[in-house]
């Protein structure tokens, strides 16, 4: 285990490139954030504006879903390299989460 | 030693057969001797699934026994290295497909029956005069006893359910305290009695209980509900429609039958508000309710059991009144002494109460 951290010093060019890439990525994150704020605003506005419940509920749930995907895939890098198992288990978790919620809203009464 | 296993399997098969041949248990309580449409359906499912399962077991056993007999080391030789087979797609397919087919055989009647047994749509069907065409009984389960209310007829009884034969009887189940489960094994499967909702189902009774050795079907509480869960039994009398109607009429008579004889009259006094005030928990008229604190005793003299499970005689009754905790740990009836300012009841007083209670009857 001692041997898996040999240090690799990158050339200047390589380094500049990596740095640039990270800066680009950060810009993407900023955009993601803007979208999230926007989605949140829509959700709150719809409720404040008092549209029909049947319209609002599915839409705000959808918006929440999109936000979660943004968080997971952009902020948390779930599509990144080495995230295969991670994604698999998160999806299993969401699957169990989904059926749990489904069950408790359908087959438990009042 | 493998012969041992073979012998065991034979032995198991024999016991199975024997047990089935012996009729399996007592008529009053065995699911194997169905006494109603619902139980019959369920029994048929039992037989069907048992055949399928037996088939599975036999197939597995044959392969199994052949394998362990044919390929033992004593036959194959100490040093023999078998061929390292990887697998066979064809076989995998076979033993995926065959079980699926077997399961389909089970699935169809399962789904059909599930919906059929849950169908209570005819419950509220009304005849032209506005009365229901079917009998409905509201069952309330309370810590270790059962109350049966007949809303259409305006009567209440406890511990012993009286129902007409050869028709569907609908049940509304609710618990007064914690969860119980309502089960009459020989008449049909159970349904839970939850504290937060009314559960509804139907049963039908195709046999008159008087034909049974004990004269009643046995009912059980099937959900752990505390120390006396094991003793939370009830009894079912199934009678033909005519007799049932008579019983209802008798129950509807407002006044409880007057106590006969001195002893019983003394008992009635003790029972009443000026005596031990048993009446504050126990109603003695079929039409009257007590808010469900204690079982309605209007039909006590007709009962088959005391407190649901003790043999119905004065001895047990007196013991019960003296010290209910002794017989049903954790039940909610106070012992006699605590109702009598801390003093034990005298034998004479007990005799009186017993005489009175045994005289409460609506059957001729």
């Amino acid at each position, binding site marked *: 285990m*001692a041997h898996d951290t040999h240090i690799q010093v990158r050339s200047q060019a390589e380094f500049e490139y990596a740095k640039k890439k990270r800066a680009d990525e950060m810009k993407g994150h900023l955009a993601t954030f803007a979208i999230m704020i926007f989605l949140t605003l829509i959700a709150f506005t719809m409720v404040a504006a008092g549209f029909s419940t049947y319209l609002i509920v599915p839409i705000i749930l959808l918006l929440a879903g999109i936000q979660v995907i943004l968080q997971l895939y952009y902020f948390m890098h779930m599509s990144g390299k080495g995230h295969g198992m991670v994604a698999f288990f998160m999806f299993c978790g969401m699957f169990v989460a989904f059926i749990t919620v489904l069950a408790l809203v359908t087959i438990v009464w009042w | 030693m493998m012969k041992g296993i073979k012998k065991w399997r034979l032995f198991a098969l024999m016991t199975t057969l024997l047990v089935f041949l012996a009729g399996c248990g007592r008529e009053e309580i065995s699911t194997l001797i169905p006494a109603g449409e619902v139980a019959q359906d369920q029994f048929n499912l039992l037989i069907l699934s048992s055949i399928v399962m037996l088939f599975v077991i036999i197939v597995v056993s044959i392969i199994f026994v052949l394998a362990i007999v044919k*390929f033992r080391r004593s036959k194959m030789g100490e040093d023999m290295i078998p061929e390292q087979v990887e697998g066979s797609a064809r076989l995998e397919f076979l033993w995926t497909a065959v079980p699926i087919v077997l399961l389909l055989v089970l699935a169809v009647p399962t789904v059909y029956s599930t919906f059929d047994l849950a169908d209570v749509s005819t419950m509220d069907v009304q005849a032209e005069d506005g009365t229901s065409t079917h009998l409905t009984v509201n069952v309330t389960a309370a810590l270790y006893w059962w109350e049966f209310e007949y809303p259409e007829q305006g009567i209440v009884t406890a511990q012993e359910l009286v129902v007409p034969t050869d028709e569907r009887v609908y049940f509304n189940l609710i618990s007064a305290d914690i969860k119980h489960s309502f089960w009459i094994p020989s008449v049909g499967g159970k349904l839970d009695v939850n504290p937060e909702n009314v559960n509804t189902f139907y049963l039908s009774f195709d046999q008159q209980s008087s034909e049974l050795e004990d004269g009643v079907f046995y009912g059980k509480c099937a959900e752990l509900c505390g120390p006396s*869960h094991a003793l939370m039994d009830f009894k079912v009398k199934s009678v033909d429609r005519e007799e049932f109607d008579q019983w209802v009429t008798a129950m509807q008579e407002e006044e409880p039958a007057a106590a006969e004889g001195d002893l019983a009259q003394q008992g009635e006094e003790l029972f009443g508000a000026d005596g031990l005030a048993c009446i504050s928990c126990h109603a003695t008229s079929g039409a009257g309710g007590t808010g469900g604190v204690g079982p309605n005793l209007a039909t006590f003299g007709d009962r088959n059991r005391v407190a649901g499970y003790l043999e119905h005689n004065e001895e047990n009754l007196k013991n019960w009144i003296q010290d209910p905790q002794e017989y049903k740990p954790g039940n909610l009836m106070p012992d006699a002494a605590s109702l009598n300012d801390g003093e034990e009841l005298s034998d004479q007083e007990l005799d009186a109460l017993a005489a009175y209670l045994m005289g409460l009857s609506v059957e001729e």
Partner: protein
Amino acid sequence: MSSIAQKKGFGATIWDFMTTVDHKKIAILYLISGGFFFLVGGVEAMLIRIQLAKAGNDFLSAGLYNEIITMHGTTMIFLASMPILLAFMNAIMPLQIGARDVAFPFLNSLGFWLFFFGGIFLNLSWFMGGAPDAGWTNYASLALASEGHGIDFYTLGLTISGFGTLIAGINFLVTIINMRAPGMTYMRMPLFTWTTFVASALILLAFPPLTVGLFFMIFDRLFGANFFAVDMGGNTIIWEHLFWIFGHPEVYILILPAFGIFSEIFAIFSRKRLFGYTALVFATILIGFYGFMVWAHHMFTVGLGPTANAVFALATMIIAVPTGIKIFNWLLTIWGGNISFTVPMIYAVAFIPSFVAGGVTGVMQAIAPLDYQLHDSYFIVAHFHYVIVGGVVLAILAGTHLYWPKMFGTMLSEKLGKWTFWFFFIGFHLTFFIQHFLGLMGMPRRVYTFGADQGWDLFNAISSAGAVLMAIGVIIMLVNVVMTTIKNERVGNDPWGDGRTLEWAIPSPPPFYNFAQTPLVRGLDTYWIEKMEGNKKGMIFAEPLGDIHMPNGSIIPFVMSLGMFIASFGALYFLDGDKPWALAVLVIGMLILFGSMLLRSLKDDLGFHITKAELLEDAKGGKTDGH
């Protein structure tokens, strides 16, 4: 015990085990405490059977009987079966994949101590005012009504030990994902490793609902919340759902590792590669997956409505298919093999008919309308003891014999082992076969007594007689363990002669650093491949001999668990009114817990190195001390 431990005094040995982070020693801890709880649960089972031996027996009172069945079920499932299986996973799985240790040695120790203190906490209820008495399922309305603190011992104790199990599950998953030796692809992993993997995944996703349910119960009973208080708008069915969303996967958490152990045994003692390895792997995954979609089959009679019942009935039945695939692949593994009937193999062989009998009654219960009759009757008791005793317990007994030499370096007596087997096996069928019929004859479960007028006397008496045979079997097993330990005849790497996987390639017991050099895996059953090719060194290695990095031992896991244990007493008595010290105890416990956590995060724990020179010394027969 390991040779290192023996040289030390008794106190030092104890200290060693309290601070160890070595997966092999933690395995021994799990085995001993799980074994102890198995005896406790077994004694409780015997009490149950004595009480039910005849009609109207008054050996146990009604209330005590309920406490005993509750503790029997809870102990057997949470404190006996699971920990013993975790013991085998700890002892064997890292060896099977050629890892140096598990991914988080520190957490491994924490997981054990949490389980241990949780179990002790639960059992202390016997001495502190009464055990829980609402059944192992602890249904909410009864649990809320139960007097005294029994239920609180249940909820708090299971919460603690549940955290331990969750930690163990995560640990195994990461170990398998990240620490496989070079060449050990997923499709070359031994089946026991695969089943450990899937069972751990089930632990990961099934324990949270239980924990949440337990917390609700704690809040309701101890802090005045209303989740299940019907008159306050609560709903008791929520508990049932949460419990069974956990509960059904739980039974597969038990049976999958058992399947894994049997898979190893069938291959080893038939001297044959597992037939349909790929199918076995996928069946394992499928069972795990389906396991989450069937829980409501425990609730058919609750009144969920026909649609829910039908859906869950069908979903449940499907599980028979992957399980069947497993059964038939095992049969084809021994078919054409060269079967040697050692003790582990006898258990494995006996498992097949026993488990199939239990499995098919499960499918019968899945037929919802039929289950209206079967539910909460002795038929259920028969079903689950057939799958649990006929599956899990037989696997535990088989695994104990199979892996004893790997864990302790000495073989259990084959002769006594066979005696144990016959007593246990015959007793098992005698006890539980007849219970199917008791159920069909109308006998509900969880009854402390039954009347002589119901026709159940004879069968109950037979059932109790069977239990006595089982007890004799277990006692012979104990004798076997003691005698073997006293004799202590040492064995080599591969005592069964036909080992196929990596764990048989290193000494029994393995040195504390496991493989001096990480092995290179060239296929399924890698050790067998090397043996067949006549490799004298046993294995091919993936790296040259070099320094090995090892984690330090630590007492912190023990102290953290102790902190939770103490805090739980505080919580338990918190609302009692007459116990002002409860809050103090709660706070002190929490301080110990968080203090030791803080200590852990502030103090860097970088481990130590074993040098190449020491390894060479060790290989020559010298001793390297762990520290």
